[in-house]
C-alpha cells in the first residue's frame, strides 16, 4: 500500500538504539521501532552507539545535521551534554524525545514540544528487582549477596547500584563486582568469574545483575559451581533465550522486564502524534515489575519474535 495514506507519511526519524545490532537489550527496541514505523508509514534511521555515552552525543550531532523531523535520544550521557544540542534541535523544529534513561530537565523544558520518555527509571528498576528477590528468596539480614554490574559505566550503572542498594537496605551483606569490558562484550567469560566468587563465598545466598546477557549465563555458572536450582536467589534483567530457560529451570528467580519493545514503539508514536497533532510529550515507565518462570511461559511465542 502506498505509505501516503498512513499517518506518519513523509516523516523521518533518527533513533538511537543503544547497543549494537542484535545485542539482546537492543533488538526488541529495534523491532518495536520498526513495527511502529511500518504501521505509521514513517522513515526510520537507526543509530547504534555500543552503549558509549560520547558516541550517543556524537550520533545526535550527526542526526541533527541530517535535519530529520524527529530524533530519539538515550539518556545515558545525562542532561548537560545534550542541553545545547537539544536547544538547537528544538529551534529547528525537530521533535526530540528520550528513551531508556530519563532526562527530566530536558523533559521539563520541552514537554510542550513533544519531548517525552519511554523507559525505566534505572535506580528504581534495580530496587524493584531487589525487592522481588528478597520476597521470592526469603532473603534475610546478614545473608551474603553478590551484585555483578556495570558500575564503571556512569549512568548505565545506576540500575546495578539500585539493586545493590535494595539488597543492602534489607540488611544483606552485598559484595560488588564490576563487569569488565571483555565480559561486557562476551558474557560467556563471566562464568568462571562467578564460579570463582561462589567458591570463595560458599555461603552466598543471592546474585543480582542488571546486565541482560550476564543474566543469561548465571545458570551455567551455578551448575558449574554445583548449586541446585533455587539454592541461590538470582535476580536479573531482560529475556534473552537462555534467561528464559533459566527462569523455567528455576536457576533464575526473577528478571526485570523492561518491555524494550515499548521503548522502541512509543517514541515513534510520539514523533508522529506530535508532528501531526501537536500532542505533548508522554512519560511512560515501561518496567513496572519483574517476571518469574510461570509468567514467562505464556509470553513465550511473543518473546521468540523479539516482542518483549
Amino acid at each position, binding site marked *: 500500500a502506498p505509505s501516503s495514506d498512513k499517518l506518519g507519511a513523509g516523516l523521518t526519524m533518527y533513533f538511537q538504539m543503544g547497543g549494537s545490532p*542484535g545485542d539482546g537489550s537492543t533488538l526488541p527496541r529495534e523491532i518495536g521501532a520498526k513495527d511502529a514505523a511500518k504501521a505509521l508509514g514513517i522513515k526510520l534511521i537507526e543509530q547504534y552507539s555500543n552503549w558509549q555515552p560520547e558516541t550517543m552525543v556524537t550520533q545526535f550531532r550527526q542526526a541533527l545535521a541530517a535535519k530529520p523531523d524527529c530524533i530519539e535520544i538515550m539518556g545515558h550521557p545525562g542532561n548537560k551534554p545534550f542541553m545545547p544540542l537539544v536547544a538547537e534541535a528544538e529551534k529547528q523544529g525537530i521533535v526530540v524525545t528520550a528513551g531508556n534513561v530519563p532526562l527530566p530537565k530536558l523533559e521539563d523544558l520541552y514537554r510542550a514540544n513533544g519531548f517525552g520518555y519511554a523507559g525505566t527509571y534505572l535506580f528504581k528498576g534495580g530496587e524493584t528487582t531487589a525487592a522481588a528477590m528478597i520476597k521470592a528468596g526469603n532473603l534475610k539480614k546478614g545473608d551474603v549477596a553478590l551484585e555483578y554490574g556495570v558500575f564503571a559505566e556512569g549512568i548505565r550503572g545506576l540500575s546495578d547500584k539500585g539493586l545493590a542498594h535494595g539488597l543492602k537496605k534489607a540488611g544483606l551483606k552485598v559484595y560488588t563486582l564490576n563487569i*569488565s569490558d571483555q*565480559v561486557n562484550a562476551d558474557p560467556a567469560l563471566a562464568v568462571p568469574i562467578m*564460579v570463582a*566468587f561462589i*567458591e570463595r563465598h560458599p555461603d552466598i545466598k543471592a546474585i543480582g545483575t542488571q546486565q541482560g546477557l550476564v543474566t543469561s549465563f548465571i545458570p551455567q555458572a551455578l551448575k558449574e559451581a554445583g548449586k541446585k536450582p533455587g539454592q541461590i536467589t538470582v535476580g536479573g534483567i531482560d529475556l*534473552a533465550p*537462555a534467561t528464559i530457560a533459566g527462569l523455567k529451570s528455576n536457576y533464575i528467580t526473577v528478571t526485570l522486564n523492561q518491555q524494550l519493545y515499548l521503548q522502541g514503539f512509543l517514541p515513534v508514536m510520539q514523533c508522529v502524534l506530535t508532528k501531526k497533532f501537536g500532542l505533548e510529550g508522554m512519560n511512560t515507565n515501561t518496567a513496572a515489575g519483574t517476571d518469574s518462570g510461570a509468567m514467562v511461559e505464556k509470553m513465550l511465542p511473543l518473546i521468540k519474535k523479539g516482542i518483549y
Partner: protein
Amino acid sequence: MSDTPLKQPAPALNPRAAAKLEGLPIIIVFFVLIGLFVGFAPTVFLHWPIYNSFLVTIPPMMILSLGLTLVIAAGEIDLSFPAVIALSGFLFAHVTRTYDAPWLGLLAAIAGGALIGVVNGFLIAVIGIPSIIITIGTSFFWSGIATVLSGGMSYTLERLTGTAINGILSGTVLGIPSEAFWALGVAVVVWFILNRHRFGEHLLFIGDSREVARVVGINTLRERIKLFTLMGALGGFAAVLLTLENLSYFPTQGQGMLLSALAAVFIGGTSVFGGTATVVGSFFGALIIGMLDAGIVATGVAGFWVEVIVGLVFVAAVVLHIGIDDPARIRQLQRRLFSKA
C-alpha cells in the same frame, strides 16, 4: 703456534638448545600464578569446580590463539576472527534448528569460517593489502552479514541437550569437559604443522622474510591463502564449541575475544615480527589469560580493584617471562641502572 686458543670453550653442540623445553618460561610463569592463586584463595583453587569451569570456557579462545600463532608466525595478523565466531555460530545454530542436522551445522560453520579465510587470504596475498587493515574491513562486513542473516535474534539450542554432538564436543570424559580434549588435540596438530610439516616451515620462512621465502621457492601466495583458510576454519570450529557450550547463539558472541586471544599468543612468547612462534607458549598463554580475572576475583579482590590487579599481575607475568627467558637481559639492565648511579 701454541694450541692453547683451541682449549677455549667451544661446545660442539649447543647444550642449552637441546635441554631447552619449548615454552618453559611461560610454563613456569603459569605455575607461579597457580601457586599464587592457591596461596591466596585456597578454598577456591584447591577444589575442582573452578578448574572445570576454566576447562569449559577457555577452549574456544585457546583454539583461536593456536590458529593465530600460525598467522603471526607468518608475519601476518587476523582481526576478523570475532566475525567468524559470529557468522559460523549463526550457521551452526541455523542449520541445527532448520534441518535438525547439527553435524551438517558443524560442517557449515567450518566451511563458513574457511570461506571468510579464503576471502581474507585472497585480498592479502593476491591483491597485496596488509592483513592488519583488511581483516578489520572484512570483520565489519561478515559480522554485519551475521546480524542480517540472524535478524539480530539469539537462538537457544536446548534441543541438543543429550545429543551425540553435544556429548562428543561438549560433554565430559572421565569427568573432564571434552572441550578441553578438543583444544588439546588442536594444539597438538598445530604444533606438528608448525614444527614438523612442510606447510609450517613455509610459514616460518614467509614470516622471516617474504623475499627469502620467494627466492627459496616457496609459493608465498598459495601458502598464505591456505593459512588464512585454516585460521577461518579453526574459528568456525571454535564458534561451534562456544555455541554448544552455551547451548545458545547470540549475535555478539566472540566480540570480547579479540584482545584476549591476541594477548594469549603474545604473552606466550611469539614475536609480532614473524618467523618464530611457540605453540606451547600460546597454549599456556591462553590458560593464563583465561584464568586471570577469575583467579583474582577468587582471592577476594572486589569492586573496581579487580581490573587494577589484573593489570598488575599481567605486567608482572610478562616481566617474569622475559626474566626467565633471557636472564642476560636482566643482568644487563642491573648493570645499566647501577652504572648510572
